[in-house]
């Protein structure tokens, strides 16, 4: 794919990610006693890009560009500075974990997505506990692992379906 086309497609994917993260903010929290839990729909385009070697010459660079742009744009449009910093740290940790898992070639796309969801949750929890000086928040980690597995699984299946349609 030539540069112009991949640039256009990148813009499209960022727009999709922004819409998904906006839609997600309207959904009620699935676990009312831990309202930070969410599906991570906005991560879907990132996971798809991570596996899109045929269309993007450097999928990893494209995927991290997408992830960072989405978090910054969504952060400044829909939330404040601090929420953006939390979101950015979660996105960064989950991206690098997903990249490592993918490069290790041990996990499938769904496994990579599960690793990404779980590590995102754990990173955000650790940062929240640190910033708030509330180590007791860490006791929520089992809930966040389980929700990370569930969310990662759903995002992974969806990414696989979309990837098949896009690349066939």
């Amino acid at each position, binding site marked *: 794919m030539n540069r112009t086309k991949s640039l256009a497609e990148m813009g499209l994917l960022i727009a999709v990610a922004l819409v998904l993260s906006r839609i997600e*903010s309207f959904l*009620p*929290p699935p676990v*009312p*006693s831990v*309202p*930070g839990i969410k599906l991570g729909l906005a991560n879907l385009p990132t996971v798809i890009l991570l596996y899109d070697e045929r269309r993007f010459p450097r999928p990893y660079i494209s995927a991290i560009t997408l992830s960072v742009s989405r978090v910054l744009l969504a952060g400044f449009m*829909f*939330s*404040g500075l*601090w*929420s953006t910093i*939390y979101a950015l740290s979660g996105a960064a940790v989950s991206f690098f974990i997903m990249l490592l898992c993918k490069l290790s070639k*041990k*996990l*499938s*796309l*769904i*496994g990579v997505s*599960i*690793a990404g969801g*779980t590590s995102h949750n754990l990173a955000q929890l650790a940062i*929240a506990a640190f*910033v*708030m*000086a*509330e180590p*007791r*928040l860490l*006791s929520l*980690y*089992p*809930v966040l*692992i*389980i929700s*990370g*597995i569930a969310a990662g699984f759903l995002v992974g*299946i969806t990414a*696989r379906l979309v990837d098949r349609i896009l690349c066939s």
Partner: protein
Amino acid sequence: MLKRIGFTRNDLILVAALLVFAAFGAWRGVNIGVSSAVAEKVIIRVNGEVLTELPLDEDRELGVTGYDGGFNVVTITNREVYIREADCPDLLCVKHAPASERGELIVCLPHRIAVELE
């Protein structure tokens, strides 16, 4: 069925390991008695420092100014506490279910406000 959607044995090992880790934490959490005890007071902290302590059996409402000047309204009613209003954009604290058991914690991350039951 899982195989058909591309779920491999290694994925299963990852999920199993994570679940064991989660189960360990849940088991320890139960052991130190986090919940299902009657709470008596509400402790409100801002940026890690105790702002005030309130009895849970007295209905009242309190405006709390957090870090960065953020504002939240903490409401105590019928032995339950919740955050009724906040001027943060994500409103996760407002979406939090009302808390009534000892050890429960409601936090507002952008304003660094923690409401804990004891």
